[in-house]
């Protein structure tokens, strides 16, 4: 017996209960021979005729919609290719992000290093500048106290300074300039020669101090000049007491700290303090030696170097005598007497205005034994 193929129509008729019993039996016997139909019959038996019909219509409509819509069949390998592309893209993104991260980090390190180098360079430059600035200030010798440098700052009193006057007010700070040099002047003094050859030259200085050194005999005559365009002259004077001041001035631009070749034209507005006439600053030492009462100095035979300074106020009055190097009070008192008896000085000026200033002086006196 060959089984007749059952269609949906047969199922529909069976469930409509319109089939004769014989046809029903035939249908039922038929579906037993096909497992697919038999199981489908079991499931479809749960529905009524109307439900079955409606559901089948809906299903066929759904299938028709699927078949009518243009469906793009994607080959299987497309999926694998898409997966590979996505993975490669993600990997490249991570790679570039990391490389940029490292580039940024390296760049930051490089920038920080350069910044450190720049900072160190700036720091060095500042140090150098400070050194130059400090070097540009007056520095006569190791023994010269910094308090004696003429400036407008208040000078704090120190006990070790003899005759120091406190609180010297200086209006302006006068800075000696290295641009000026003073001509070399060498004066040799000889006990046997009465005549001393020396040259007076006007030294225009921008620094506060000028150091003159006697190279040959090791004697130094230092004269700290206040203000710019200070005149330094050396003069040897003969003394009846055979107290001679030996002085050798020479100018060595290399050794002096404030060598200048030319007077600075910009310093015309400034002038240094100087004694009133008839005493000239160049002859100050000679004048002092002449006026000293050597009888009061007999207790100190020999050669002596006296370093002292005094302030010249705007009024020209002298004050604040400080002796940084002196054999004794006798010398101090005599020098003070001589200088003050000479009268007031002409004060230093800056921009044509009188200013307080300090004069530093180094005097060499030879006291012979009697």
């Amino acid at each position, binding site marked *: 017996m060959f089984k007749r193929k059952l269609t949906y129509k047969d199922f529909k008729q069976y469930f409509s209960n319109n089939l004769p019993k014989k046809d029903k039996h035939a249908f039922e016997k038929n579906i037993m*021979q096909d497992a697919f139909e038999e199981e489908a019959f079991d499931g479809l038996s749960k529905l009524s005729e109307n439900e079955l019909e409606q559901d089948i219509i809906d299903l066929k409509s759904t299938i028709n919609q699927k078949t009518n819509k243009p469906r793009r069949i994607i080959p299987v390998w497309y999926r694998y290719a898409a997966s590979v592309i996505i993975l490669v893209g993600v990997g490249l993104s991570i790679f570039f992000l990391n490389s940029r991260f490292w580039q940024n980090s390296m760049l930051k390190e490089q920038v920080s290093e350069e910044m450190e180098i720049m900072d160190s360079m700036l720091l060095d430059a500042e140090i150098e500048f400070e050194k130059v600035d400090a070097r540009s200030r007056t520095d006569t010798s190791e023994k010269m106290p910094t308090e004696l440098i003429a400036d407008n700052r208040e000078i704090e009193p120190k006990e070790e300074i003899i005759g120091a006057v406190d609180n010297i007010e200086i209006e302006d700070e006068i800075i000696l300039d290295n641009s000026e040099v003073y001509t070399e002047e060498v004066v040799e003094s000889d006990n046997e020669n009465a005549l001393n050859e020396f040259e007076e030259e006007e030294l225009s200085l921008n620094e506060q101090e000028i150091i003159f050194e006697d190279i040959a005999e090791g004697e130094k005559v230092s004269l700290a000049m206040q203000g710019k365009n200070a005149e330094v002259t050396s003069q040897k004077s003969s003394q009846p007491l055979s107290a001679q001041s030996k002085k050798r001035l020479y100018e060595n631009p290399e050794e002096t700290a404030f060598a200048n070749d030319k007077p600075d034209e910009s310093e015309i507005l400034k002038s240094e303090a100087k004694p009133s006439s008839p005493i000239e600053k160049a002859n100050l030492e000679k004048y002092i030696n002449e006026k000293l009462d050597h009888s009061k100095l007999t207790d100190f035979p020999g050669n002596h170097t006296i370093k002292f300074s005094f302030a010249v106020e705007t009024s020209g009055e002298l004050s604040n005598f400080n002796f940084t190097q002196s054999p004794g009070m006798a010398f101090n008192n005599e020098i003070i007497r001589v200088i003050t008896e000479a009268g007031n000085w002409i004060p230093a000026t800056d921009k044509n205005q009188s200013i307080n200033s300090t004069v530093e002086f180094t005097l060499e006196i030879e006291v012979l034994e009697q």
Partner: protein
Amino acid sequence: MEDIFSKNKSEKEESELLQQFQSTGNLEILGELYNIYIHLVYGVCLKYLNNRDESKDAVSKIFEILIIEIPKFEIQNFKSWLYVVTKNYCLMEIRKKKTEKKHLQVYTEEIFMESSEILHPIDEVPESNLAEELKNCIEKLKQEQQECIIMFYYDKKCYKEISDKLKIEQSKVKSYIQNGKRNLKICLELTTSGIEN
């Protein structure tokens, strides 16, 4: 004869449609082929999933599966292959539902017991004249199975008639008939093997 001709014709038509779809990929051809058996697919889904909406969704998804799977295989009998695809899909859906685990076990047992496309000897006998062996085996069946077998195959009554007469549900009638057929087959096999020996 007419049945053979119609069967061959339908099978030829299905074969041609299948070949056309495999060669062209035209979904309309596949849709036409699928609509021939859509009621069977829906019925099987209803049996396993026991839900109309879910069964309708399953029918749509099975169609989409066919679009992908058909080009991969050389299918000789599309109906049988469709049946296997449908049943496997339904079983997979049931596995997803952990709460219906018991339901799955029931259906697996029934499938194991009832799945057979081989004609039962009793189905091959178009006439009411039973062989002596078959008659003896029927007598060995349980009462319910015996009555259903005789009424269905010899009295040519439908499920409804048997149900009305025995006052049992139609589903039980069908079950008794199926179980009876299985037992008859076993009995006949034993009998045949005993004769040969």
